[in-house]
């Protein structure tokens, strides 16, 4: 089964794309996630979660490799999403995979901190 859902954020220094196919959602982030895009990121992650629920997603993959930096306010957006996904009943739960670059220092530390919040649903690919 395929569907045509897609969500995009495009700002001068930040972009996010999400698409869904076969109960899998692919998300990619580029640029810098800072205070100037916090509201857009909040909205984007709410949409990703809604689509994951709607299509009974098994897995959401988030590619951070092109994300230069993420501030603590935007990390909180991810904490909201992770907590929400973690709190779903068993048949609505989905896995989250973070794809990171081993050469980008913030990704190793920050994504590990996020993953520790919900080890049972999050894994990191480096």
């Amino acid at each position, binding site marked *: 089964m395929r569907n045509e859902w897609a969500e995009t954020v495009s700002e001068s220094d930040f972009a996010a794309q999400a698409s869904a196919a076969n109960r899998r959602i692919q998300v990619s982030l580029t640029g810098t996630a800072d*205070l100037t895009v916090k509201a857009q990121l909040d909205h984007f992650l709410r949409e990703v979660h809604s689509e994951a629920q709607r299509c009974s997603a098994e897995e959401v993959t988030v590619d951070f490799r092109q994300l230069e930096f993420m501030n603590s306010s935007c990390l909180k957006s991810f*904490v909201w999403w992770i907590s929400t996904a973690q709190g779903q009943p068993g048949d609505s739960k989905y896995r989250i995979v973070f794809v990171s670059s081993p050469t980008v220092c913030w990704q190793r530390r920050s994504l590990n901190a996020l993953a520790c919040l919900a080890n049972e649903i999050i894994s990191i690919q480096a």
Partner: protein
Amino acid sequence: MQESPTLSFGLQIQPHARMVSIVRRFVEESFEKIVGDPEAVFRVSLAVHELLENAAKYAVGDQTGLQVHFETNGSAVRIKLTNQTTPEHIERLRTCISEIQTAEEPFVLYQNMMRRTFGIQKESGLGLARIRAEGELDLSLEIDGTMVTIVASCLSARGTPT
């Protein structure tokens, strides 16, 4: 024995959200040219970013002073951010930094703060806890009336940041 060369500079910046990433990149690119350790560069740039965002959100007035001091062998780093703010914010800073300073496990405190503040739009202190946990820098606070200075620093006898 020759002392390690140092890089020190100060900037006066308008505390505006759009300035934060511009200044972080400037610091990062400057340090990358003279410091071989990407982890050390990351720790400085993380602290600069989170402190400047703190000022962008809570400073009163149109000037924020940033001072960065770095010994190029990584043995010492000090980042100071000074701005004017409200008595209420100073009180919250005092409480937050005290909690960070007394935490036995900075990473555990960081995780706890993530859990308890993710739905809170107002001041959470998460950026400061991140500087301590991810940046592995000590935090302190200097207060002079309504002027407040947050200091993020570390000094390592081993010649590398701890």
